[in-house]
């Protein structure tokens, strides 16, 4: 499943003013662990980046199925692939 995984952005909307960045990071790992049968190690391996200042979300390596699971989780607005943009 690792070899078939791709990078996705899990977008979770605005950040609450009281959100603690460390807590957000922990929550991201827990969300990832839940789709890795509870494995925090696998969650940490798949985690790439957390967005904590202007909005909430994170980037992770996921399979297509895991991305679909993630999209259904509470608090998730959208899950989309890590698309490449071009300079204009």
């Amino acid at each position, binding site marked *: 499943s690792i070899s078939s995984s791709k990078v996705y952005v899990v977008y*979770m909307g605005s950040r609450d003013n009281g959100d603690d960045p460390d807590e957000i990071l922990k929550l991201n790992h827990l969300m990832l662990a839940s789709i890795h049968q509870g494995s925090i190690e696998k969650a940490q391996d798949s985690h*790439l980046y957390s967005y904590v200042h*202007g909005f909430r979300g994170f980037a992770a390596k996921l399979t297509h199925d895991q991305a679909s699971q993630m999209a259904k989780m509470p608090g998730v*607005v959208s899950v989309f692939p*890590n*698309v490449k943009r071009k*300079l204009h």
Partner: protein
Amino acid sequence: TTHSWDFMGLSSEETMEIPGFSTKNQVNVIIGFIDTGIWPESPSFSDVDMPPVPAGWKGECQSGEAFNVSTCNRKVIGARYYLSGYEAEEDSLEMVSYRSPRDSNGHGSHTASTAAGRYVADMNYKGLAAGGARGGSPMSRIAVYKTCWDSGCYDVDLLAAFDDAIRDGVHVLSLSLGPEAPQGEYFTDAISVGSFHAASHGVVVVSSAGNEGQQGSATNLAPWLLTVAASSTDRDFTSDIMLGNGAKIVGESLSLMDMETSTRIISASEAFAGYFTPYQSSFCLESSLNRTKARGRVLICRHAESSTESKLQKSVVVKEAGGAGMILVDEADKDVAIPFVIPAAMVGRRTGNLILSYVNRTRKPTSRIFSAKTVIGSRQAPRIASFSSKGPNGLTPQILKPDVTAPGLNILAAWSPAASKKDFNILSGTSMAAPHITGIVALIKSVHPSWSPSAIKSAIMTTATVRNKHRQPITVDPEGRRGNAFDYGAGFVSPTRVLEPGLIYDASPADYKAFLCSIGYNEKSLRLITRDNSTCQEQTFAAPSDLNYPSIAVPSLNNTYTVTRTLTNVGYAKNIYRAVVYPPRGINVTVEPSRIVFDRYGQKISFRVNFQVAAPPQGYAFGFLTWRNRKSRVTMPLVAQVT
């Protein structure tokens, strides 16, 4: 840049950017550039005479390869770089140069200096485009968010840059990049997502429309973005071509090489080699030319792609085949100047056919190509660049895109010597147009620091012009047709007018929530995005056309339709305006009320615009609504299509 700011009417002195206004507070405006980084040693980024970094700035100077904390200065006050998303996708990591905010590509230094570069005297590109170079807001501060590498920029990194920029405290964000058209939904697109939150935090986000050229190809379509099309100035880089029959033809080029004598000219199709057909060889593809047939000749090549690299590459192919020169026929991009590696010039299809006709009818046709030179004022300008992506908005046709146009053709600005051994370079693209608007946004912000992103956007759009410097309608390259709002949005920016728009169409974050409801986002999604108790029921409008935008687009007009807009008075307290309508062809437009009386600054007054089909036009039709008084003209484009 050496000419575009003068062309737009700004003073050439660094300290007085908009004649009649003091914009000394531009030192308090911080512009973030999400791009390929920066070459901080460029004279464009000197911090001489700049005061200390503004209080409240939370950014940092991230150290890395050939870049340390002290590389930043009072001009470049922040610099970060992002690789997570890139590293996760790309195999060729060894190709990454400068794992730091340092620019190895040149693009980021070019855009940053266009918007906010310091004045640099006697600048030029190999003698071309000579003059004093400067950005639009030369005393503004720069914060660099390097997310783009030679092969492109990934969503994961772009979002990280937005996230940091919002926290750091930038006032303006400039992006000269985007998705391939068609663009995805707003909340599955990193630029739309990041800019939504940036705008919610009061940051003005300026973006380029794209370089696809065709109708409906515009990208960066979100209404909270200020999306910029590219147009010309009145400066060209021309190269004379003398034919053996005495005819002199003018092409576009940045090649400074002269042919010493006339030499035989042939169509590249005559020099076909190996397995290539004459047709394939006419495009001067790699290995398609026979050295014996090409040696010492001027080759006429055709072009079918839009990239500068591929055009430049054709001159390399001709040079490697022993060719003495090249005439490249490219109708779409005939005005883009390319630094060919041999004596060469680009011409349009009509001129190309003239040359081919001479070649085909002459027993021993000859030609000679001369070095490029700078020519000012030879043609009407501005014109919309052929490559500039056009409307309508493919995602929400009720929101007109692009919003406005600015110079983006043959722009000289700072460069990275790591990319090629020069400090300044000439480039074309909507990438070059967007930072012109970014610079103007910074000037407005310096004079009106409390104005919202949408108020600033409104000031730029409602004061733009649809006439060129000869007071004629702006035309579109290459065919010279009359332009419309899908080409230039509200028109060509008028920086001398933006500080006194008189009236503005303002929109708050709450209006964008209503907009999201109107395009189908339900309450659950809305609350997730905003993390408040917003409901779609409490929103004040039902259709996306109702967003208080400085343009009106009605893509499916069925008999009648009414749109409401609200004006805010930012001029004198007591002011009377009357509406003047130039309706789209075949559509009657009335405005209620048609006369508006303001008696205080900041007062808001709403009006209705009623569209009624009279004689259904084919496709989209274009018009204007102007609120006028003795001092101000506040104009918005009207676009409608009857279904």
